[in-house]
């Protein structure tokens, strides 16, 4: 199968859907500039014209409302934000209207809206360019949330999101943009509410969210060296969440670690762990990992301790499986080295 990048997968999904359905339009700050949102919107303004692809004023609140009004009128807007942190300026529209419109207007209105946003990391992103706010959206009925981790799913979930009649928060991660992988050239859908087991194992279930999925797979490789086989699950869609796949896995392994790409308090991991425990008739050992409970610092010497990585996840999971503190930390392996952003932004 053809190999392509996560960036190209997003661009291709947008292109295919815009060609297929003229009600699909795309806008956001800088979507039509020369950088084209890391290349994810490259060529679209030229192909579809400024009525369907346009840069916007710096007005996240109103432009989110404008997108909702367009969607109520039957368009299928894709609203792009180059950082997830900027969504905080859109919260009234997203939570009070987009999520609730279909319900509080008695089913008379629909909001088929896609909101793309990127979680930043590394090279000084710091406090306000690094936040992973998807748990805010998972909290609210009426929103769909998806965080694809590879190019195949980036394309298939974006197509699914565009075709969905509900608002979908499409969460990207700046590091995942570098991913390459097999992507079919034709159109296809990765449907809401289905997780994928990406590594089979017997001893522990690891659920990795967004970029943390990549780190969880590295952890699984480190764990092999101490004889632990980890079942790694990519939930793909966070709302609706495929709990059945996770619960089935934990029934087999008896232990669950959720690695969140965000803070653990009231996070996606808290939700997944709770629902597993509620649905389990035997004792399950659980662990949540995620951002350190502090503000993300830009300096590399502190930032490296802010995020879990393959080695720290492996160490935590080894303790979980062993039921004791083992003080084991694998040596870093060159073949499992972290992708480091080379900058500058």
């Amino acid at each position, binding site marked *: 199968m053809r190999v392509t990048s996560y960036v190209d997968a997003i661009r291709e999904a947008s292109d295919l859907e815009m060609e297929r359905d003229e009600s699909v*339009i795309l806008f956001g700050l800088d979507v039509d500039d020369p950088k084209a949102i890391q290349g994810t919107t490259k060529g679209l303004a030229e192909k579809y014209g400024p*009525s*369907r692809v346009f840069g*916007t*004023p710096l*007005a996240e*609140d*109103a*432009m*989110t*409302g*404008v*997108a*909702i*009004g*367009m*969607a*109520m*009128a*039957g*368009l299928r*807007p894709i609203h792009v934000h180059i950082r997830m942190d900027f969504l905080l300026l859109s919260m*009234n*529209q997203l939570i*009070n*209207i987009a999520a609730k*419109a*279909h*319900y*509080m*207007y*008695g*089913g*008379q*209105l*629909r*909001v*088929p809206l896609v909101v793309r946003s990127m979680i930043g990391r590394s090279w000084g992103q710091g406090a306000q360019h690094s936040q992973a706010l998807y748990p805010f959206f998972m909290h609210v*009925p*009426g929103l769909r949330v998806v965080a694809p981790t590879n190019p195949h799913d980036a394309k298939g979930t974006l197509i699914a999101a565009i075709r*969905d*009649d*509900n608002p979908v928060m499409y969460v990207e991660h700046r590091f995942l943009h570098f991913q390459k992988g097999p992507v079919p050239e034709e159109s296809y859908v990765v449907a809401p509410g289905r997780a994928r087991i990406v590594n089979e194992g017997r001893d522990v279930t690891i659920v990795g969210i967004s970029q943390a999925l990549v780190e969880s797979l590295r952890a699984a490789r480190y764990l092999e060296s101490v004889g632990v086989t980890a079942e790694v699950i990519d939930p793909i869609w966070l709302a609706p969440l495929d709990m059945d796949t996770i619960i089935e896995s934990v029934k087999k392994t008896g232990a669950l670690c959720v690695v969140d790409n965000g803070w653990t308090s009231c996070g996606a991991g808290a939700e997944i762990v709770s629902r597993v425990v509620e649905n389990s008739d035997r004792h399950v050992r659980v662990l949540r990992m995620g951002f350190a409970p502090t503000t993300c610092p830009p300096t590399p010497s502190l930032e490296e301790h802010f995020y879990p990585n393959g080695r720290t996840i492996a160490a935590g999971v080894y303790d979980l499986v062993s039921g004791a503190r083992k003080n084991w930390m694998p040596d870093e392996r060159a073949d499992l080295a972290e992708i480091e952003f080379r900058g500058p932004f």
Partner: protein
Amino acid sequence: MTDSRAHSRFTPDLFRDLYRIRRVEEEIARIYPTDKIKSPVHLSIGQEAIAVAVCRALRPEDIVFLSYRSHAGYLAKGGDLRAMVAELYGKATGCAKGKGGSMHLVDTEHNVMGASAVVGTTIPHAVGYAYAMQLRREPRVVVSFFGDGATDEGVFDESINFAALKHLPILFVCENNGYAIHTRQQQRHFVSNIAERARVRGIASEVIDDDLATLLGRAEDAVASIRRGEGPRLLECLTYRWKEHVGPGEDFHLGYRTREEAEPWYARDAVRLSGEALSPEDRSRVIDEVEKEIAGAIAFAEESPFPERDELYRDVVAEAR
């Protein structure tokens, strides 16, 4: 300034539109203490002429977006009266099946889009809808109704900027009743002329006093110019809220405003003046018809069932069509 064309339009239909809204809300106020309506109501009494004048300039295919003080706009645009009263009663036959309430009226069949309780929130929806109309070359006008309080919000400035930038077919109607809940406009705005603020943003704007004839003429002109493709317009309509911010009563006892301040507005009451312009026979006929319709709507709401329990989870997610 009085528009001479408008006097000839003091017809029984105009009186019917105004009187009907006034009487519906008076009936809501009458029923309210019985606790049958468990929905916070923000009455339009005193402000009806704006919604009526603007909506009379519209065609059925034109679209309105409303705020939480939306009974007048909903009814003036042709929203179903029985479904509205049933909605206030929380009944399954309500316009939102009892799941919206007074602050979220909707009737898409008559192009009344969903109203919102959060001030200013629907202004950009109207702008987005107008963008869709322009993109699809549908010759329809979109109207955004909001109060002076909404213009405090950043989303107002952001929205009118985008509407001007894209030359959209939209009419912004600011119903300036001088108060955001209990706080005077002068305590909130350094520049109190809202039309002037919009003009700076590139929107052709004007301030209109409470005179019904003027309102009718200016609304018609504004809608006609938008229909000709001349871009967005804003009407700042000065008015006065007779009742309390929320609820059925008066609120002069609170001390933030006086009855003396209200009296000149009572004297210019559009409902009374439009009725007095008719022959006694015409007036009685309209009154009889409206009273029957309202009584029928209340009976319909009272007799309608409450939603069944399974309705709690319906429409959380829109199913594929």
